[in-house]
């Protein structure tokens, strides 16, 4: 008995570490949630079926944890062997018992009082590697915490807030590095993606998302507009360990709505890029919006899936884009395979054979306003998509709305918003939130589910035949993944702006979602 007890203790001690190999095989540990997307491919599907279409109606609140600050609580928690780690706005970080919600430790990073916070005070979550946790701070730093007690081990600058940089995304741990991009596309920064040494915090490489003078692509920016062209990789990307490639969605060009001061395609703004994870060198790119003027970045999850495409096994990349189109690319070469609109759109006439969009005659914002669909926030945005491999179905939530876009010449000033225009909702035109199940081979909708309002909630797929998502009114719902039928709902009492996760501890499956200023966890009775 004693030896069994010791063995169990030892196993627990070993399991608390998360080496790179565990991240590579994260999907084979459905009981845990080890990265922001839950897996390197951004698939957000879990082989857990204790909660399923038959019993999800009985799902009930198991525990809730209140964080000190309310507001946009955009975290996606990590779960490592029964311990949940999560961040909250204003530099907060917590570890709790994933079964009870009881606190194990809490930490707070003090944000300088006078700092400009380009994305507000939000944070989207941790990365874990070894026995360490990594988080961005809204004023543009990367922190390393000891997962045993939350102690800060190092703290490095990713981008100076004084120049309009910030960082809100969860870092991505790859091998011995942490990959993180900057925010600041509305402040005329020059975007970049960085890799930091996990042990020391020393920067290993930096890839500028806007090529410098003399580099290929710099000629796609008129004059010196590339110096303040935005294009920040502000969300968390994905990674293919076999190919050694990082996939990242790049932000919009700056100024957002006035393209006259930055003529040209503006590479690599509004693009999906593949980078060598070891060196940060660009391998391929696909630009979804050459010379974008609608804040339609390509920061949405570049999801990785291996499927037969027209009878041939192929390594694919899916993205539901802010511009309202679902894209399929070959992720080895970047070759464009298909694009199909999932939202109302009036900007694209189609695509040429290289996948370059053919624009309608007049899509740019004007001084007197131009009605274009989708709206400024999309289409899709950072709400997480999901993919059910059994059903071969891609799920996303997006905004069905249009806006009137206005352009306005604006002088650039460092550290100041640089929109170059504005937008307005269109009165008496219906807008709503939509969840769609897409056939990834055709882009056609298998079903759709409407919410009353456009909503910032992502999706989660499980082998229980369920799709979890929610809405801006605070409803967390379970839909039948096959039909879109509503199977369970609860009013969480506050709007939500992240995506649910699921995990298992000691044979019991849980569902966790941040809402308002609380982290809510549900389970079957």
């Amino acid at each position: 008995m004693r030896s069994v007890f010791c063995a169990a203790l030892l196993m627990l001690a070993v399991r608390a570490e998360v080496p790179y190999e565990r991240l590579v095989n994260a999907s084979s540990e459905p009981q845990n949630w080890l990265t922001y997307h839950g897996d390197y491919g951004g698939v957000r599907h879990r082989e857990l079926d204790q909660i399923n279409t038959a019993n999800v109606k009985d799902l009930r609140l198991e525990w809730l944890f209140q964080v000190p600050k309310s507001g946009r609580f955009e975290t996606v928690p990590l779960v490592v062997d029964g311990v949940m780690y999560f961040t909250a706005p204003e530099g907060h970080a917590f570890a709790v018992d994933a079964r009870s919600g009881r606190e194990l430790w809490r930490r707070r990073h003090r944000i300088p009082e006078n700092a400009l916070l380009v994305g507000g005070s939000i944070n989207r979550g941790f990365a874990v590697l070894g026995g360490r946790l990594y988080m961005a701070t809204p004023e543009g730093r990367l922190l390393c915490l000891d997962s045993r007690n939350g102690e800060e081990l190092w703290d490095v600058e990713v981008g100076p807030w004084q120049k309009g940089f910030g960082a809100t995304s969860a870092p991505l741990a790859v091998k011995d590095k942490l990959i993180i991009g900057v925010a600041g596309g509305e402040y005329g920064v020059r975007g970049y993606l960085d890799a930091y040494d996990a042990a020391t915090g020393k920067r290993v490489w930096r890839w500028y998302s806007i090529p410098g003078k003399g580099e290929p692509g710099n000629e796609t920016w008129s004059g010196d507009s590339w110096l303040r062209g935005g294009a920040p990789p502000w969300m968390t990307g994905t990674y293919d360990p076999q190919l050694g490639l990082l996939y990242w969605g790049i932000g919009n060009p700056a100024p957002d709505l006035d393209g006259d001061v930055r003529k040209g395609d503006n590479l690599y703004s509004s693009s999906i890029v593949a980078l060598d994870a070891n060196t940060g060198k660009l391998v391929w790119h696909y630009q979804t919006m050459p010379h974008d003027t609608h804040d339609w970045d390509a920061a949405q999850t570049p999801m990785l899936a291996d499927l037969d495409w027209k009878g041939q096994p192929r390594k694919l990349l899916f993205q539901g884009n802010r511009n309202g189109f679902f894209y399929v690319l070959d992720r080895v070469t970047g070759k464009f395979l298909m694009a199909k609109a999932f939202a109302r759109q009036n900007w694209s006439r189609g695509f040429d054979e290289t996948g370059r969009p053919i624009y309608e005659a007049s899509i740019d914002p004007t001084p007197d306003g131009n009605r274009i669909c989708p709206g400024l926030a999309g289409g899709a945005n950072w709400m997480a998509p999901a993919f059910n491999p059994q059903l071969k179905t891609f799920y996303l939530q997006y905004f069905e709305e249009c806006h009137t876009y206005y352009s306005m010449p604006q002088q650039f000033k460092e550290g100041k918003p640089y929109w170059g225009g504005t937008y307005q909702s269109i009165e008496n035109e219906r807008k709503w939130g939509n969840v769609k199940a897409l056939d990834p081979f055709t882009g056609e909708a298998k079903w759709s589910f409407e919410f009353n309002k456009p909503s910032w909630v992502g999706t989660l797929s499980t082998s229980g035949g369920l799709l979890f998502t929610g809405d801006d009114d605070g409803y967390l719902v379970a839909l039948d993944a096959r039909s879109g039928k509503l199977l369970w709902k609860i009013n969480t009492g506050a709007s939500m702006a992240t995506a649910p996760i699921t995990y298992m501890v000691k044979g019991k499956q849980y569902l966790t979602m941040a809402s308002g200023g609380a982290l809510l966890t549900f389970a079957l009775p």
Partner: protein
Amino acid sequence: MKLLWALAPLLVTAQTISKPPVAPGRSIYLSNCSLCHGATGEGGRGPNLSSGTPVHGTTDADLRRVISKGVSGTPMPSFRFEGSEMAQLLGYLRSLRTTRVAVEKAPGDAASGHVIYEKLRCNACHRIDKSGSVYGPDLSRVGAGRSLAYLRESIVNPSADVPPVYRGVAVTAADGSRVTGIRVNEDSFSLQLRNIAQQFVLFDKSEIKEMGERKESLMPPYSNLTPKELDDLVSYLASLRGAITKQGVKKGVEVR
């Protein structure tokens, strides 16, 4: 696209010449604030800045604090403006507040207007301070937030501008019964109305056969008033500015 680029500078020049110059604070506002607070301060992702009582205060010091520090726990970020920019922005924000229209001189007699208000039983739908119905808009500060022309039009042709929150919703329930009321709340699965008797009428959407928003105002047009009666009633409404407490904060519910 190339052709458009070639033409665009010409178009912009033409627009710039034909338009009157705008206050410098306006461009600062449009490029920094309007995405959340609306192009004319009407609100959107952020609060309405053109009417109502700002939660964080009304003085320049209050505004300066909110702008430079942001609002903790909300998407309102901190902004850093140079002194001159801040002054221009504050000036523009002040100009957005429609309370400035209250200096207009009303032509009629407010006391007589009050009598007409009582006679027409306006309080069956509206309220002033704590007296009257909660069905329609609160008028306690309507004089501080609306122009005389707007007040006049609201009486004779209320459908000319119906604030979204006071648009009538007509529901036919599954059992065939019909209800018309003001939408107190609605989400993906439920609808909450208030009827003219000031009762809540609550629906699960599965209980609703049909629902639609009325284009016309729920308020009938009062087009048969004499010009004198109309002047008096407008004068009375224009005199409603809410109470001022010792702290200098105006009481009264937000005028919508």
